[in-house]
């Protein structure tokens, strides 16, 4: 029961946040929408016993990523409101059409498709220890050790690259 209520609430939160991202004229409001979505999704993770992921989600996304976003928004001037005149003709119509198509497709799948989200599921009850740090760490440092190391590489690239990109060139404005 509690899960259902929370799910409904958080799903609404996530959706409202998502729509805010897209619809808000001011990027700051978009960022806040994203924040809302991130939080709601984090709660949904908790509901699904993924506590660690939920915490990391908030720390990394909300704590670092979105803060960076805000920083850049502030840095490059928030006062510039976006030009809502569509420069590409048909772009909006195209997006609308695409959206409609997806909705239709989804509707058709739900109604006619005899559709199953997780066809491979074995209907076992998930273990309560699934979300614990120990369980995840066990996997992360054995089976996924290569991926783990590769993420280190990725972060190195990101750091080095960001420095290279943002580096001020002398003699240029």
């Amino acid at each position, binding site marked *: *029961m*509690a899960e259902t209520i929370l*799910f409904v609430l958080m*799903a609404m939160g996530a*959706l409202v946040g*998502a*729509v805010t*991202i*897209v619809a*808000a004229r001011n*990027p700051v409001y*978009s960022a806040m929408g*994203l924040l809302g*979505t*991130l939080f709601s*999704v984090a709660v*949904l*993770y908790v*509901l*699904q016993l*993924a506590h660690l*992921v939920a915490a990391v989600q908030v720390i*990394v996304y909300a704590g670092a990523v979105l803060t*960076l*976003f805000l*920083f*850049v928004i502030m*840095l*490059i*001037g928030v006062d*510039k409101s*976006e*030009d809502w005149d569509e*420069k*590409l003709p048909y*772009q909006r119509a195209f*997006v609308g059409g*695409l*959206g409609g198509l*997806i909705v239709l497709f*989804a509707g058709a799948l739900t109604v006619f498709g005899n559709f*199953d*989200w*997780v066809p491979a*599921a074995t209907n076992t009850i*998930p273990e309560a220890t699934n979300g614990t740090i120990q369980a*995840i760490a066990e*996997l*992360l440092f054995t*089976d*996924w050790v290569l*991926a783990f190391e590769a*993420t280190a590489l*990725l*972060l190195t*690239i*990101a750091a080095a*690259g*960001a420095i290279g*990109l943002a580096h001020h060139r002398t003699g240029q404005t």
Partner: protein
Amino acid sequence: MIVAAGWYMALAAALFVIGALGLLLRRNALVMFMCIELMLNAVNLTLISAGRALNDLNGQVAVFVVLVVAAAEVVVGLAIIVAVFRRRATASVDELSELRG
């Protein structure tokens, strides 16, 4: 009472679609970028929900990888956006039109 994984994944799908459409619709590089983050979030939600339904931890571990990727993308992406801004003082993709055929 347990909510079926399908609901979570449907929510994720909705988020993903909103993100994708937003990316196509908006012209502000930052907002577009946020839409990408939204999409990655939808991915994470899908992975976790599927992982729970399958009683498989790999889904959760995969989320960590996606998270790190998202973080790295943000670092680079924002660096690029800032670099562009330094030249143009705009974050609108529409105004980036030096490249034309």
